[in-house]
């Protein structure tokens, strides 16, 4: 029973991080119709910045200060996104999708090496915060308390995002632009500004995912590319461009992955990819996507 509970919490832990990454990817696609192949690298960037801040600059500081520094990665990723969209992506909106994929693939390669250039080839860890939180007991086993913080952040992010998009004026503009960019533009919406804001928000979410994951596991090169493929599975299952879909997709992937690690480790990844392929076959636009 306790084992099952631990598996469940682990699944929620995965789902929280995945929702942050995939939600950002989906938000960007929903508004801008761009699939950002470098999205995983923004997640990695967030992880590196937070690891650098917590594990390097402020090492040894009290937990409360470390907690304040935790979102540094999210803000850094947001700033990077806000700089990238107008310079690199904006010239491509009028061109074929192939070019958009290519330019973000180029960006992926560049960012991957920039991380290596700035922080070197070795893993960067920020385990101090993770250890400071200690652990609690579930049944007879010890379980790190920090993981509950990650799940909490995931839930809060989902609620905030929902409120942001469905309850605020900015959300209305965002949804209008997503549904019909030309019409929104004709009605006086500054589409360029909405695009920058949506892209920045998406990058912020990816960066936040990286920031909260890094105390529990180190920031390593290649983590972005791996995360991107998982995020793809999430959005393919949930529907590209749908935040509800990202949430449900993240939960499904979280549960399947945890079950895979526990019971069928050899084909854990294959089962995930196959699940995505089956969903696409049955519902081409994903569970919550617009066809």
């Amino acid at each position, binding site marked *: 029973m306790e084992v099952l509970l631990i598996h469940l919490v682990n699944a929620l832990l995965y789902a929280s991080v995945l929702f942050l990454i995939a939600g950002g990817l989906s938000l960007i696609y929903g508004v801008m119709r761009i699939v950002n192949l470098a999205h995983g690298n923004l997640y990695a960037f967030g992880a590196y910045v937070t690891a650098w801040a917590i594990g390097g600059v402020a090492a040894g500081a009290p937990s409360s200060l470390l907690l304040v520094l935790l979102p540094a990665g999210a803000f850094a990723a947001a700033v990077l996104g806000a700089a990238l969209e107008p310079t690199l992506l904006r010239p491509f909106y009028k061109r074929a999708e192939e070019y958009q994929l290519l330019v973000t693939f180029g960006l992926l*390669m560049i960012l991957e090496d920039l991380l290596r250039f700035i922080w070197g080839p070795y893993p960067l860890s920020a385990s101090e915060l993770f250890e400071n939180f200690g652990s609690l007991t579930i049944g007879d086993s010890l379980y790190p308390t920090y993981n509950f913080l990650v799940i909490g952040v995931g839930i809060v992010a989902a609620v905030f995002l929902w409120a942001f998009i469905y309850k605020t004026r900015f959300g209305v503009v965002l949804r209008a632009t997503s549904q019909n960019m030309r019409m929104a533009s004709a009605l006086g919406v500054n589409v360029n500004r909405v695009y920058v804001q949506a892209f920045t928000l998406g990058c912020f979410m990816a960066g936040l995912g990286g920031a909260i994951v890094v105390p529990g596991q180190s920031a390593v090169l290649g983590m972005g590319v791996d995360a991107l*493929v998982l995020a793809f599975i999430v959005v393919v299952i949930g529907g590209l461009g749908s935040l509800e879909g990202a949430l449900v997709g993240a939960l499904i992937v979280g549960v399947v992955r945890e079950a895979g690690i526990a019971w069928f480790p050899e084909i854990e990844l294959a089962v995930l990819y196959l699940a995505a392929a089956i969903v696409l076959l049955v519902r081409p636009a994903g569970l919550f996507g617009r066809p």
Partner: protein
Amino acid sequence: MSTPAVAASAIAREAGSLRHVFRWALPVAVILLVVPWIVPQYTAILLTYGLIMAIGALGFNLLLGYTGLLSFGHSAYFGVGAYVVALMVKYLRVGSMELFLLGAIVGSVIVTAVFGFVCVRYTRIFFGILTLALSQVLWSLAFKFFWVTGGTDGLRVPTPSLLAGLATGTGDKTDFMSHAYYYYVLVIFFACVVLMWVIVNSPFGKALQAIRDNETRAEFVGVQIWRYRFVAFLVSGVFTGLAGALWVPLNGLTTPDIMHWTFSGEIVFMTVLGGFRSFAGPIVGAIVFNYLKTYAVGYTVYWQLLLGAVLVALVVSLPTGIVGTAERLAARWKKGG
């Protein structure tokens, strides 16, 4: 296309383009034939890698350039070709290159048929994501089933015997690879180029281009879109699988890296580098990319940064690639002079 005048002009255009091609293709073929005798062995081996990747990119471009489908999963078929060969060595103790090629073709036909059946219903971004997801299935299998595939250690493949034992690599491996194997690859390369040329200029190839340019109109003319895309997918995958089979004895080792989706990205990269709107684009792109990557890797640890910057610059300023840009410059020069 039914009036005689249109048909005649089409034939004339075809003949013109054929003449145009021979003006370029013949000197290039002659150069490729004498290369191993004039350049260092290392350069010849690099060129062999380039020619092999050119076969793969040529196959890939049947989908991107001629059918308008951007696949991010071609690493899967390349990997299937390579792993079929490696598994034939491991379990069947086969050493003949011809059997390798046969096995790789059979293997990649099976895999592309299954993948194609799933993928060709989709276009644009969904096609890209779906091919990527499916190729990652194979990657994860190659990665996890280490008792079969060797995991990240990969599988070794010894030097094969060519032409049913006529040439064997018992002597100096470098010499064998830069001469006998080079010519072996070159002949297959020529055959693939001719075959692809025939395919893209056949009624089948024209139908693919019609689908690419306007799906609805092509359907109204009576083209069965699904079936045409499926066959294009199959041919494309088999070309890339063949490239994988040729690559693995040269490399001596196959690892799951070549199945990973970033390798698909490299195949896309080379095709765009050469120019996906022209027939020769992927060939030029693959050979240039291979040299570019080899020297970038040797020059700096930040080679990804360098290649990424090249890709971004290319897409921003030269979207028609090397061949397209050269053609435009040549046309301008001709007009001016």
